[in-house]
């Protein structure tokens, strides 16, 4: 067995996995709080990438360049996407909070289609090039054969975001309110927790995370269009379910497992059936471990 090749596939899988994780974290957080599969989450990721592209265009036109542009673009994208997430919850999900779950799910699918087509009409249906503004780190030169600078940034960001969210949920007041709301919304409310605010915050955090993912992945891949959110969203959903939906560590673990599965399968078997294999894997996991890898026992919602 060729070790170089194996290592390449391993890192490729790690990159994919980290990308899925950035999206899956928001997915699983929202599910943890209100048990809604937010199908429009992938679209928020796409909107983040588009926002960043526009900001980069404007700043470049104004004569700026370099990493600062990317940082500013990422921050603006996160804020803008957070506003989208907040608004989306208010208009598409909040009115349906007491309705049967299927209604909210349909509303989510509608939201997803609406946002896709809105971006297609407002922007373009074509692929747009996304500039790579991630610097060439000097320390990566020796490993240039295996790993690109954008990949290092993606790994680091995923790790930081995961750690940050975990700390937030474990130790802050908002985190406690989120866990309480996830376990028993009515009881949390009766103890003075403003659950509307908790749910809004969850959407804001999840959307900002997704937008950050959108910016990094667009930098890595080099192009975007209005449809990128769809498959990314579905894959992140698969990853979240694999890991045990509602659990943050589960989302990351599920994403990595999915990333490696796809990478090794593509590398050793065939790249034609990459997505088919990812979903086949999901079916197998769900048959043998219906509550995901981190199972119900170990899983703590949110």
């Amino acid at each position: 067995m060729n070790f170089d090749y194996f290592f390449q596939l391993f890192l490729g899988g790690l990159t994919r996995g980290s990308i899925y994780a950035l999206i899956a974290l928001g997915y699983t957080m929202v599910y943890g709080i209100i048990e809604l599969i937010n199908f429009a989450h992938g679209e928020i990721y796409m909107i983040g990438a588009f926002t960043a592209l526009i900001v980069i265009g404007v700043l470049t036109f104004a004569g700026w360049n370099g990493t600062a542009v990317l940082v500013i673009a990422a921050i603006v994208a996160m804020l803008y996407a957070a506003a989208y997430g907040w608004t989306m919850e208010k208009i598409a999900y909040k009115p349906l909070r007491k309705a049967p779950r299927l209604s909210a799910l349909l509303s989510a699918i509608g939201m997803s289609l609406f946002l896709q087509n809105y971006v297609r009409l407002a922007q373009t249906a074509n692929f747009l090039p996304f500039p790579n503004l991630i610097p060439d780190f000097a320390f990566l030169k020796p490993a240039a054969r295996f790993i690109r600078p954008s990949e290092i940034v993606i790994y680091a960001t995923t790790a930081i975001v995961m750690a940050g969210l975990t700390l937030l949920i474990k130790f802050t007041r908002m985190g406690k309110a989120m866990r309480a709301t996830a376990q028993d919304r009515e009881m949390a409310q009766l103890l003075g927790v403003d659950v509307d605010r908790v749910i809004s915050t969850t959407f804001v955090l999840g959307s900002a995370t997704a937008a950050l993912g959108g910016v990094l992945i667009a930098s890595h891949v080099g192009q975007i269009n209005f449809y990128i959110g769809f498959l990314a969203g579905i894959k992140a959903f698969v990853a979240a379910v694999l890991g045990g939906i509602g659990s943050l560590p589960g989302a990351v673990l599920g994403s990595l497992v999915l990333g490696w599965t796809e990478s090794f399968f593509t590398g050793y078997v065939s790249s034609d059936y990459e997505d088919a294999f990812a979903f086949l894997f999901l079916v197998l996991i769900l048959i043998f471990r219906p509550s995901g890898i981190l199972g119900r026992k170990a899983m703590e919602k949110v």
Partner: protein
Amino acid sequence: MADMAAPALEVSQVTMDFGGLRAVERVDLVVRPRETVALIGPNGAGKTTLFNCITGIYSPTQGRIQLTAADGRVMALKGLKPNQVTECGIARTFQNIRLFQNMTVLENVMIGRHCRLRSGIFSAILRTSAMRREEAQVVKESYRLLQRFGLARHVNEFAKNLPYGAQRRLEIARAMATEPSVLLLDEPAAGMNAQETQELVTMINQLKASEGLAILLIEHDMRLVMQLSDRIYVMDYGKLIARGTPQEISRDPAVIKAYLGEEEQ
């Protein structure tokens, strides 16, 4: 008797309809500070529905619910969200235990304390020093509260691992963490043995004495009701059918017919 004191909680002509079903019909009820009032009645009489109306889970179809704080402020509760009702000063427990099972005992109580704090969400995320001081204060107060309820040695255990009696006590401790002026207890003695029930009586009497608390409780254990209550309201089919002292209620023919009669035969 505290009959002369101004009521802490005043429910006037409250009606609650679900579609064509009238679950609560024109109920009047008052609870005064330092008073324990029992609400009794057969299953399905509308007692828990009335609790849900008071705490903002349901918005009553008609009527008025008013809370007077210790400092004399008068607040209309109808139409408020449950968390706003809690902020006004009403706390509640449920007949089935509804602790946050996957959180520690301390965290359960801290959640209740948080509604009394100032710092907003941004300082909570940024962890400013004022916010940190406040949080340390919350931990201290929560710990003191747990001590009072005999739960100090369980602080860092998950709520789900506590013995039954301790879980019940924790529910009341958590409710008290919100600093209520009125405490609603929905069948607090459900599932308790004789000794645990006796401890509960002691605890409720202490709460009443030390905090000037007004307590409204739903209970099926008649001995407990007679022992604890200053006054009793009786509901049947959504309506109040009697009110009075325990002695009066135990002699009331309508009550005996609707409720007590079955137990005494």
